[in-house]
C-alpha cells in the first residue's frame, strides 16, 4: 500500500515487464474486454482513435497507476468453501496475480492473527480505508432471535455486516449463501438466514453466486473494479452479466445430444458412457446462469456436466428447495401428500354422491308429476 502502485509491488516481487504485460492481457481476457471503447462505439471515429485502447494496454495502465484495493472479508453462516476455491485455484498465474491487486486486511480463515488482535486490525483497517475498501461477504446472515445463531467476538452477524458495510465502497457477496441464502436458508431455515442483499440496501451489492463461486469470476469482478473503478453490468439478481449472461445449457458441451434427444437414463448406462445429455438425470442447466461451461474449474480442466454429473443449479436462488437433484427438471417440485390427495378424492366422491342423490330425487319427483314421462339416458353427458 502506501501509495505504491500494483506494478511497483509486482516489480519488487520480481515480475518482469513482459510477464506484467502478459498478466494484463490475461486479466483483460478474464473480464471479457475486447477493445475499449468497443468496436461498435468506435465506428465512425476510427480516424481519431485508430486503435483506441487495446485491452491489455488499458489494464496495464490501471495496474501501473493504482494502488492495491483494500479488502475486508467477512464470513458468517458458510463453509469457507468459496475461500478454499479461491486460494486453492489451479490457475495460479491468473488468480494469484489478481490477488496481488488486492490487500486482504481481514479474513477469518486466512488471518494469522486471532482473537482481539485481529478484530482490532479490522477496526483499524475500516477506519484507515473508510469509503474505499471492498467488503466481501461469504455466508448468510442470521437476524433471527437477536442474531444468536451466528455471532463472532460476541457480536451478531447482522451488527458486524452493517458496521462493515457502512464504510465500504461496494459489497461483494460471494457464494450462494451470501447471495441468496444458500444452504442455511433451505427449508425450514432454522436460523432465519437472509442474503446480503436482503439486508444491505444502501450500498451497491454485487452477487457472485455459485457453490462455491468460481474463483475466476471473483477475480474478474475485482479486476473490473480495479481497471474501471466501477462494478460491471449486473442482471436482475445483481450478478455480473459477463459471467452470468448465459445458462449452463446454452454453452454445454453435451447440448448437441439434447438437440438430438439422446439422454442418459442412469449414471451407468450406455448413454452415460457415450456422454449423452443428463437432462433425465435431473440436470438444471437450462435454468442455471453461470460460467461453469465456459470458464470451467481447476484451470479449465472440467466442470460437473463434463465429468458426468448433472448441474445442480447451485448459482440460482433456493436451489436446495428446487426439487430433487436427480429428478428431471420438468417434474413438479413436489407431489401432493397422499393424505391430501385422498382428501381431495374423498371430497370429490362425496360431492358427486350428493349430486347423484339429488338428481335421483328430482327424477322421482318428475316421474310423479308426469306419469307419462319415461326415465331415459338423455341426461348423460
Amino acid at each position, binding site marked *: 500500500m502506501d501509495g505504491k502502485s500494483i506494478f511497483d509491488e509486482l516489480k519488487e516481487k520480481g515480475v518482469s515487464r513482459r510477464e506484467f504485460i502478459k498478466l494484463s492481457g490475461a486479466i483483460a481476457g478474464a473480464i471479457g474486454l475486447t477493445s475499449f471503447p468497443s468496436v461498435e462505439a468506435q465506428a465512425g471515429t476510427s480516424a481519431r482513435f485508430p486503435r483506441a485502447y487495446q485491452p491489455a494496454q488499458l489494464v496495464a495502465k490501471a495496474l501501473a497507476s493504482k494502488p492495491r484495493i483494500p479488502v475486508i472479508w467477512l464470513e458468517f453462516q458458510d463453509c469457507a468453501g468459496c475461500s478454499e476455491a479461491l486460494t486453492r485455484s489451479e490457475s495460479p498465474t491468473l488468480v494469484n496475480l489478481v490477488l496481488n491487486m488486492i490487500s486482504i486486511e481481514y479474513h477469518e480463515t486466512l488471518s494469522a492473527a486471532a482473537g482481539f488482535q485481529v478484530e482490532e486490525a479490522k477496526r483499524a483497517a475500516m477506519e484507515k480505508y473508510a469509503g474505499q475498501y471492498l467488503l466481501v461477504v461469504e455466508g448468510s446472515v442470521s437476524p433471527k432471535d437477536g442474531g444468536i445463531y451466528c455471532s463472532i467476538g460476541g457480536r451478531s452477524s447482522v451488527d458486524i455486516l452493517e458496521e462493515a458495510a457502512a464504510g465500504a465502497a461496494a459489497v461483494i457477496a460471494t457464494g450462494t449463501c451470501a447471495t441468496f441464502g444458500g444452504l442455511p436458508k433451505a427449508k425450514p431455515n432454522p436460523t432465519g438466514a437472509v442474503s446480503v442483499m436482503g439486508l444491505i440496501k444502501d450500498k451497491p451489492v454485487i452477487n457472485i453466486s455459485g457453490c462455491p463461486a468460481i474463483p475466476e469470476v471473483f477475480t474478474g469482478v475485482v479486476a473490473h473494479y480495479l481497471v474501471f473503478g466501477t462494478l460491471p453490468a449486473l442482471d436482475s439478481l445483481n450478478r455480473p452479466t459477463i459471467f452470468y449472461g448465459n445458462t449452463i445449457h446454452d454453452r454445454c458441451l453435451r447440448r448437441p445430444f439434447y438437440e438430438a434427444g439422446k439422454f442418459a437414463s442412469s449414471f451407468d448406462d450406455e448413454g452415460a458412457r457415450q456422454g449423452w445429455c443428463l437432462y433425465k438425470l435431473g440436470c438444471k442447466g437450462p435454468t442455471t446462469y453461470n460460467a461453469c461451461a465456459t470458464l470451467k474449474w481447476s484451470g479449465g480442466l472440467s466442470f460437473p456436466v463434463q465429468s458426468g454429473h448433472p448441474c445442480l443449479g447451485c448459482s440460482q436462488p*433456493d436451489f436446495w428447495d428446487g426439487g430433487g437433484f436427480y429428478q428431471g427438471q420438468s417434474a413438479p417440485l413436489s407431489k401432493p401428500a397422499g393424505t391430501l390427495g385422498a382428501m381431495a378424492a374423498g371430497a370429490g366422491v362425496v360431492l*358427486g354422491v350428493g349430486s*347423484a342423490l339429488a338428481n335421483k330425487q328430482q327424477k322421482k319427483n318428475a316421474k310423479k308429476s308426469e306419469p307419462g314421462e319415461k326415465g331415459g339416458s338423455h341426461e348423460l353427458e
Partner: protein
Amino acid sequence: MNWNDVLSFARGPLFQAALLIFIAGMLYRLVRVIGLGWSRNHVRPKKSQTKGVVMSYLKGILIWPFVPWVKNTFTKNPIIYLAGGLFHLGLFVILVLGTAHMLVWKSLLGFGWKTLPLPIVDWFAAATIVAMVVLFINRLINPVLKLLTGTAEWLNLLFVFVPMLTGYIMTHHLFFQYEVLFSIHMLSVDFLLIWIPFSRISHFVFYFFSKSIHGQEFAKHGVRA
C-alpha cells in the same frame, strides 16, 4: 418480479393445488354421471350388448378414411377429421411419449417408461400446433360452429394452445428466456388442470362412457321374441 419465484410457485404449490382440484373435480363429475344410472332393459334385447360395446370401441379406433362408416364423415368434414385427428394423436404422443412429460408421470406415479426420440416428438408437436391453428380458424369461419361456440370453447382452445406453444418454443430455446417460457407453460397447465373438470375437455374420460352407452343401446336391434 423474479421469474425464478414464479416458476417455483407454478411448479410447486400452484401445481399441487391444481392437481387436487383436478382430482376432486373429476371424481365429482364421474360419480355424478355414474349415479345417473343405466336404463334397465325391461325385455331382453335381440343381440348381444357386450358385442355392441366392443364394436363401438373398435369403430372408434378404426378411423381410417377408407373404412366404410368413416368415409361419409371424412368427405363431409375433411378439415375437422384431419386436424382433429392429428391434434389428438399429437397430444397423446407428446404427453405420454415425450421425455420431459414422462418425467412428470414418473415423479407422480413412481415409474417411468421408454420415450420417443425428441426429433420425432418434435414433428408431432409442430403438426399438433398447425392442427390447432386450423381448428381455430375453422371455428372462426364455420357458420355452424360459430353458433355453437361460446366463451368456454374459446377458453378450451386457449388453455390447450398456450402450453402447447410455450412447450414447443421452450424445447427449442427460442425468443425468450427458458425460465420465462417454463413459468408460462406451468402456469397455463395449472389453469388447464383446474379448468378441465368444469369444461368439455373432460371428454377425455366421458368419451368412454358415451362409447359404452351408445354401443350397448344401438346393439339391441329390437327385442328377443
